[in-house]
């Protein structure tokens, strides 16, 4: 199975994308495919990760499990398997 557009592999990344992949590796131990999908536009990738982290890892009256459950319910309704 492959992406439908050209994406940049971790081995081929340079500049800002290489730094973003390095941060992803340190945080998660891998470059998830959803991260690689956004490699054509590193600035959009950077902003998307920043929003994700603010929402999912930042302070909130919602517990992390409540936030993850929202993610699961939304993805289920959207029938998004990823």
């Amino acid at each position, binding site marked *: 199975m492959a992406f439908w557009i050209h994406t940049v592999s971790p081995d081929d990344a340079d500049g800002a994308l290489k730094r973003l992949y390095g941060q992803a590796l340190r945080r998660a131990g891998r470059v*998830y495919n959803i991260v690689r*999908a956004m490699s054509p536009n590193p600035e959009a990738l950077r902003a998307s990760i920043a929003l994700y982290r603010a929402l999912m890892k930042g302070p909130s009256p919602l517990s992390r499990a409540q936030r993850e*459950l*929202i993610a699961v319910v939304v993805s*289920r309704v*959207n029938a998004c398997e990823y």
Partner: protein
Amino acid sequence: MQAHAGDLRAEIANDWESLFGRRIPRTPDARAPHEADAAALDARVHELVRDWRAGPLTEPTGALLAYVEKLTRSAASCTAADVQMLREAGWSDRAVHDAVQVAAYFNYINRVADALGVPPEPDLPTWGAP
């Protein structure tokens, strides 16, 4: 969904009471007071992934999930009365805001994943199976 079901599994033991409103169940042979039965936690995540309404979630958490489900199916049908119901369920405006932002983020990222053919992570467990 699968990637975040795994994240839910990682968080559920720490945040059990925020979802279910009571102490986490333990097996009799648990070695520590906080030690949960991993198989029971797995089963609960499978159940939530299949149908969150089937699980014994707290009423406030269920109200919040019903609202994010509504905004995902039909955002234009959301009303001030819906938000008032969340307040009456005990949620602060900050909590409502955060839930809406999380739901909106996943509506966005689901579309990125589906429209660019993002492959699944083959080595991650599959959640929601019977």
